[in-house]
């Protein structure tokens, strides 16, 4: 589960990379009590997660493939999906760069207030999404004290998504960077490589899996984001992301249409999770 971990609050400074859990553990067989426990857990998971999510897919595909396709390609649905996918990809890319830089600065640099920055990075992820939305609205909304009004622009959507996804790459890169042996870097420096070359040729390749998994989690989170985008989007057509579009359809009792968009969002989350799992196994095997 290591790569699947969303940011664990405050875990950064002492985090160490856990080895991937093997599938053949030391452990005992299920007894009567633990068997009953497993049954209860699976039943609860089914009632709460599996059956409801299956209901979304069943509803979405219930009218057949062509109806599903028609529902997600209406001009509004398609526009919402396009905005959601493009802004999420953009946000994942920015996060890959800025998150890595932040992790680098937090691990390799020392300056007063470093621990405070550590704390601050966790805030956007833990903040209630509607509060995150209001926080951004109060600074970058119509009565902005800094004179930047983003209300109702697509830039505002991107900004809100950047806010809520801030910790993902930082928290996945940081532990790898801490655990990194600096011997290779020192050797390269002795051989005359500049800091840029050392970073590009030695550090970056080792960080890539962590950067990729952090960016993928940020992408998944951005795809489904609702609360933080809602207020600053201004309720306009051009800033309507897929979650907002789905909510609107639910309110109008267009459950089939809502389920179609919801199915797309669900498939994307599943794809990210499965992809990360594959990545984790591969990295685990190599290391």
């Amino acid at each position: 589960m290591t790569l699947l971990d969303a940011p664990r609050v405050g875990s950064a400074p002492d985090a160490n990379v856990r080895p991937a859990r093997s599938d053949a553990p030391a452990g005992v067989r299920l007894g009567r009590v633990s068997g009953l426990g497993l049954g209860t857990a699976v039943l609860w998971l089914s009632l709460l997660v599996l059956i409801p999510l299956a209901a979304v897919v069943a509803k979405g595909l219930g009218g057949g493939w062509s109806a599903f396709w028609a529902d997600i390609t209406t001009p509004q649905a398609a526009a919402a999906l396009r905005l959601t996918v493009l802004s999420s990809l953009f946000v994942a890319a920015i996060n890959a760069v800025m998150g890595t830089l932040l992790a680098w600065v937090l691990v390799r640099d020392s300056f007063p207030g470093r621990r405070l920055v550590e704390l601050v990075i966790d805030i956007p992820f833990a903040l209630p999404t509607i509060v995150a939305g209001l926080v951004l609205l109060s600074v970058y909304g119509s009565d902005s004290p800094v004179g930047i009004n983003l209300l109702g622009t697509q830039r505002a959507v991107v900004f809100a998504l950047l806010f809520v996804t801030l910790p993902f790459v930082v928290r996945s890169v940081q532990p790898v960077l801490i655990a990194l042996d600096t011997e290779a870097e020192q050797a390269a420096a002795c051989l005359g490589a500049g800091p840029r070359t050392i970073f590009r040729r030695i550090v970056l390749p080792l960080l890539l899996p962590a950067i990729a998994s952090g960016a993928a989690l940020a992408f998944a989170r951005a795809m489904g984001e609702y609360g933080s985008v809602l207020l600053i989007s201004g309720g306009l057509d051009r800033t309507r992301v897929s979650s907002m579009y789905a909510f609107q359809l639910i309110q109008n009792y267009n459950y089939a249409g809502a389920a179609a968009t919801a199915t797309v969002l669900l498939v994307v989350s599943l794809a990210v999770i499965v992809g990360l799992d594959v990545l984790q196994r591969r990295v685990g095997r190599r290391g």
Partner: protein
Amino acid sequence: MGERRGRLLQRSIALGYVGVLVIVPLFVITWRALADGWSGFVSALSSEQAVTAFRLTAEIAVAAVAINTVFGVGVALLITRYRFRGRRFLGSLADLPISVSPIVVGFALVLVYGPTNGWFGKSLAHANIQVIFALPGMILATAFVTMPLVLREVVPVLEEEGLDQEQAARVLGANAVQRFRRITLPVIRPALTYGIVLSLARAIGEFGAVKVVSGNVSGVGQTQTVPLLIEERVEQIEPGSYQLAFVLILVTVLAIVLVSLKRSKESVS
């Protein structure tokens, strides 16, 4: 020569990014929340609607987190101590809720437990149990979204601890309850505390999923939680949204500081 400058440049870019994105906005909202002074706070938090919203939010959060604590500890024990088919799958599945859109979560629950068209809705309605647009649905939605938090705090600790003590106790004749209370619980207590604190913070703030299942009723039979009330006040341009938001920010920051401080103290010792 250039190295020092490069380092300063990196640092200022990184800190500037965090500043523009997080620190400045937090300062501004604090300033706005405090702009009306103490009386602004009192009037924002003391209306009947707000008081009910706070009570409802607390009830939902406590119920959802209680469920997740039992579930999280149980599943953590199962996947670290036992061998069975689908063990790995169970762990990944319990992680799924983190990346599913809150709107999809709420909608999924409506499709299954909704009173008119839900898969189980008819039978539930027969039994006079209302889930959607009522408290149980909101607890379910919140439990869904916060499900992995306790689990993922406890699993690494149990993995690291291993089975030796547990097996020794078993050989010495301790029963399951004794083994849990005397051996497992002391080991997982810090992680469990973090999980519970973070789940509570997250549960108090859940917005999208709760919005879909709640129907957002205010007044008698209110299903309006604090985050929903914040949205209403912003959209109706009523006063008091900043103060409510400020309270939630305080709770969140408090939870983060608490967990971070305890965690770093732990790693020092």
